[in-house]
């Protein structure tokens, strides 16, 4: 089976992200593979192990995103492709989906494309379904488990109301959630292989695509309203006394 895992690079979750002069700053925090996309790589590798085949990590992003792809290689992906082009500085999710679909077609022959649930930075969670729609492939979203059986795939979708089992013919687009299993750590051998790997960089013309004009654009960036976070520690002689005082505070909030 030929599997593609789509990954993005984002500032680390621990980073102190701020708006400074209309721009986003994350200080000297590192850029990392989008944590949700580590699950995508994990899901893809599990399928490779179950059915044989290859995993290709695919990213649309700047040159620096090589490091995120190297993380996927170190985890066990067989190869990686970076789509990078100066014309792609402003991408909304639909634009990203069109470029990803063009790259997926260029790679060719994929049976399954695995996505993360959402990005940490934009957090839209739209790209997987939009890519599926552009490709005309079935969308199996929020999979907590994946099972492939002779040309078809069954996933267990983790939704608000429980778990739904859905089946489709391959090729299909799948997005995964954390129930897929903890992402494996890169092995020593994997890290060595990744550090030596040559990652091809494709421009838009390499994938026969033109720069999609963004439809959704940012007009303003804001820091969240500062909230009154001075904590009042409730103390007392006994748990009962503390509870008594805390209960009064709760009732004073008038939320019951």
């Amino acid at each position, binding site marked *: 089976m030929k599997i593609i895992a789509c990954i993005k690079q984002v500032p680390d979750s621990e980073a102190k992200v701020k708006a400074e002069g209309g721009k986003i700053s994350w200080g000297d925090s590192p850029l990392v593979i989008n944590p949700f996309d580590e699950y995508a790589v994990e899901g893809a590798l599990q399928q490779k192990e179950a059915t044989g085949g290859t995993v290709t990590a695919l990213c649309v992003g700047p040159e620096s995103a090589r490091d995120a792809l190297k993380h996927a290689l170190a985890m066990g992906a067989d190869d990686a492709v970076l789509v990078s082009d100066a014309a792609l500085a402003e991408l909304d999710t639909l634009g990203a989906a069109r470029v990803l679909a063009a790259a997926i077609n260029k790679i060719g022959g994929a049976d399954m494309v695995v996505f993360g649930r959402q990005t940490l930075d934009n*957090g839209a969670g739209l790209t997987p379904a939009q890519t599926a729609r552009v490709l005309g492939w079935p969308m199996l979203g929020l999979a907590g488990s994946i099972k492939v059986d002779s040309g078809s795939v069954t996933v267990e979708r983790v939704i608000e109301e*429980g778990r739904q089992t859905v089946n489709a013919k391959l090729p299909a687009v799948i997005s995964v959630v954390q129930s897929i299993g903890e992402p494996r750590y890169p092995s020593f051998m994997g890290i060595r292989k990744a550090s030596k790997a040559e990652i091809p960089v494709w421009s838009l013309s390499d994938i026969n695509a033109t720069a999609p004009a963004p439809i959704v654009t940012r007009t303003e960036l804001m820091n969240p309203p500062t909230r009154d976070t001075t904590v009042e*520690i409730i103390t007392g002689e006994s748990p009962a006394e503390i509870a008594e005082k805390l209960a009064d505070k709760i009732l004073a909030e008038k939320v019951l």
Partner: protein
Amino acid sequence: MKTLVYVDHFKGEVQPASWEALGLAKSFGTAVALVFGTGVDAIAKAAFEFGADEVIVVDDSALTDYRAEPYASTLSALASSSSPDLILFPATTRTRELAAMSAVDLSTGVITDVTSLEVNGDQLIATRPIYEGKLFEKTVCSSKPVMATIRGRAFPKPAQTADKTGTLTKGDAKTDAITTVQGYAASESKVSLGDAGIIVSGGRGVSNNPSLGMDEKSTAQVGFELVRQLASVLGGAVGASRAAVDAGYIPYANQVGQTGKVVAPDLYIACGISGAIQHIAGIRSAKTVIAINKDADAPIFKVARYGVVGDLFQIVPALTEALKKKLGK
């Protein structure tokens, strides 16, 4: 302005933020509710009662189970024929896909998790959190219709007027299904964290009570029972940290945080939760946070309004008792 409002439901159970979306649509002008599925008359009736001017029902066996493709195609066709300015959705797992796909069909954009939507001339400006709520952005969509999914509890729920009616129209279904639903297992506990006004959450701390002399998992069951009793006296929902979910104390459906549910309750009580940044990411919109933790240096106290430095196995049941008395329960 004309707005289509997609009423999201699962087997007839409506996601409450659908009505919040309907209220928002009404504040802009004409609101047309879309109800897809089979046997959905009761939902159509409720849509009128919550303020819809018109309800378009697409009742077709192809739409019995939610499936992304036929739902999206049906929506796209209705949007093409009725040319709305705006399509609103409650932000749920289904609408993310549905809006995403229809936007491809309609060559327009989707703005997700909107917390505020203003009209400025003929432009709609949406505010939404990015970077796990560490920042907010205002965005605009240059194509029509604008599509937006709204966060639960970000907009007021409109009042329900019994037996109010309006124009009921039948719509046609597109039946281009390419997936099959083979089964469904309801979550063990019915959790509705997204629209809960009060949430009491437990973390790894619920498994820490050596005096019980039990193993970790059994201790955690006792701990979560205390959390559940507090939630119950407050009429709230039960949440959890990822550490508690990963350890198997409670299902994933209860997880609050970056990889779980982002919540916006009036009151959030964290019991035995350290307050890792990924947990905080899920509770930034909570109005009042109360932390109960043994460790005075736990980061959760940095976002809390009230805190108790103590053992949850003592404080939580005492609090439940105190509230029971004060509330006359």
